[in-house]
């Protein structure tokens, strides 16, 4: 069982590999550059939790074979 902290760290490590110029729009929550995204994940606020939720969704999908269904 992977802990939430481990998932958070995994997300941060992956985000660090993104090109510096990449940004992310999360609807009305705003738009963020790479460093801001990482900071939100580290902080664990609403935006950070959303990024982690997307990652968890992806990992669960892999486990459930979602990508073979699409």
């Amino acid at each position: 069982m992977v802990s939430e902290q481990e998932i958070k760290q995994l997300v941060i490590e992956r985000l660090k590999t993104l090109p510096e110029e990449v940004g992310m729009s999360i609807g009305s929550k705003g738009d963020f550059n790479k460093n801001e995204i990482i900071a939100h994940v580290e902080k664990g606020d609403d935006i950070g939790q959303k990024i982690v939720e997307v990652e968890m969704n992806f990992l669960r999908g892999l486990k459930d074979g979602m990508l073979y269904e699409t």
Partner: protein
Amino acid sequence: MKHSLLVTRPNFDLTTRYISIWAKKIIALAEEKGSAVFDLDKNRANRKEFESIIRKKEPSLVFLNGHGDYNVVAGQDNEELIRVGENEKLLKSKIVYALSCRSGKILGPSSVKSGADAYIGYDEDFIFLYDGNKRTRPEQDKIAEMFSEPSNQVMVSLLKNHMPKEAHKNSKQSFARRIKKLLSSQSTALESSAVRYLIWNMQHQVCCERYVIIN
């Protein structure tokens, strides 16, 4: 069949700037097909004009672009255009696509209950990646294009007279094709990240018609 199309395109921050530009392709396609297009861009994306065009022109298709939440879709400067319990009845007999966060959850079903033919939207946040070097020229942003194409597929299909549930299905297939392409190539870190958000958007696009929600 020729449609008449109402498009709302607020443009006051990065997200609305991007989706406003994405919608231009749909406007061009609609005009090419001979549809009447009512384009409420920037300051015209306000409640007064929105309600007026809906009442006077009775468009068959409504394409909403803007920020939103479970109960609401907004226009310029986040002025509320349509809200559950206030004016969703205006969408009666219309097919709606909302490129907006979350409105597919409550506003969508509520609109259909109030007489809309169908409401396609997202029941969670719509997320996209973009190239920071292109933020003032969204039309040249190849990163964001990975997200705009599958989204726009809904309107492309509707303009080709597909049924709403087919348009929804076609859009999801477009997301899936993009995801598979990214996974099957030698994925860069960027592409690998993009896959997560494409899957998220694909999974959270919903189509509500005749009291049935199709995921």
